């Protein structure tokens, strides 16, 4: 009987201890941003490996998602004789939802897993302890530039995704299916609001950028320093990122709608 309570208490305490450790590390990382800004070379390096190398997958997927939206939207709208609204459907679903969410999922798979594996391997090969031995703070040198680069990259990637997707929808809708070009753009411009829709999407992608990069960096920093531990941490990064992004997406949508 008491064992059960003891187990419950132990789990609760451990959960909060972990949470507290994570929050402290997060604050510490945020606070060391200023040290990173003084060394922009570090950020540029990370922007390259996180942002630039994710560009291809984001742009190609955005293009195809936009084309599929164009096809599906047209087939539904044509029944109501409202195929002129295709631009609105494509633009709103991309800017508000699919842009930030799909970009975050792809980003977690492409950049997040790489971050976890990189940092986890640094830990497994004791490079992190080595840095500490040389009086270099690994939070400042390793975690902060990666987190900052991720936060910068994510909104830019999501914007690219949406823009390319809208162009893909345009190609399918206007060039292939014969929707009027003028109404595609003008209806879109009439219905898509900058403050409500686009800023909304940018806020979402910004939050997703913080969350997915942080999960990746934390899992790597906190993994069991063996090859199995690194592989598990990488898996956890992708799974947690996907779950948190989808959950947060609902919350953010409900808050900002």
């Amino acid at each position, binding site marked *: 009987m008491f064992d059960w309570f003891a187990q419950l208490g132990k789990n609760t305490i451990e959960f909060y201890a972990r949470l507290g450790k994570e929050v402290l590390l997060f604050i510490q990382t945020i606070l060391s941003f200023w040290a990173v800004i003084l060394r922009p*070379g570090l950020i*540029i*390096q990370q*922007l*390259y490996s996180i*942002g*630039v190398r994710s*560009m291809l997958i984001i742009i190609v997927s955005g293009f195809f998602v936009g084309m599929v939206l164009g096809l599906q939207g047209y087939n539904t709208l044509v029944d109501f004789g409202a195929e002129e609204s295709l631009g609105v459907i494509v*633009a709103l679903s991309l*800017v508000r939802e699919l842009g930030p969410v799909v970009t975050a999922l792809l980003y977690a798979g492409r950049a997040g897993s790489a971050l976890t594996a990189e940092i986890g391997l640094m830990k497994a090969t004791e490079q992190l302890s080595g840095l500490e031995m040389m009086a270099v703070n690994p939070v400042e040198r390793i975690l902060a530039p990666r987190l900052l680069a991720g936060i*910068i*990259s994510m*909104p*830019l*990637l999501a*914007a*690219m995704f*949406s*823009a*390319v997707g*809208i162009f893909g929808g345009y190609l399918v809708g206007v060039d292939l299916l014969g929707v009027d070009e003028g109404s595609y*753009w003008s209806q*879109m*411009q*009439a219905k*898509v*609001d*900058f*403050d409500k*829709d*686009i800023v909304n999407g*940018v806020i979402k992608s910004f939050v997703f950028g913080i969350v997915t990069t942080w999960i990746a960096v934390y899992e790597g920093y906190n993994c069991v320093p063996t090859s199995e531990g690194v592989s598990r941490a990488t898996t956890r990064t992708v799974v947690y990122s996907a779950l948190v992004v989808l959950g947060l997406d609902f919350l953010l949508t409900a808050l900002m709608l």
Partner: protein
Amino acid sequence: MSNSRRLEIAVGIFVAVGIAALLVLAVNVSNVGGLNSGNQYTVRANFDNISGLKTRSAVAIAGVTVGRVVSITVDPVTFEAVVEMTINSNFSEVPVDSSAGIYTAGLLGEKYIGIEPGGAPDFLEEGGVIRLTQSSIVLEKLISQFLFSQSNDDK
């Protein structure tokens, strides 16, 4: 050196493309910089019924959008709907005896406010009130009136 330079160029392109995409979204996809920019003035109008009108609905003169609905409230005394709208200052010479009506764009389209200019020499100003209003047409009421009149004719 050349390696780090290539890195910087790649990152520069990445950031530029990202910002360009944001700009495309802002300028080409949404309606920023259109009516929202520039000076505008606020006028009020009371309606018996505004069903279907929303904040941010269009305000049009001769079918051309000149402003937006800002807020819709209910007057606690008269129980009329008080609609506040902003009109772009380019259209500052709207006569005070203009009338405002709530119309529908197409049969199923969105509601908007149409302003019919009057002939008075004075113009609406900031905080002005449009006195002549025509309420939104409630389709259900029309249909039920039509049906009732039909059944009365049958007798």
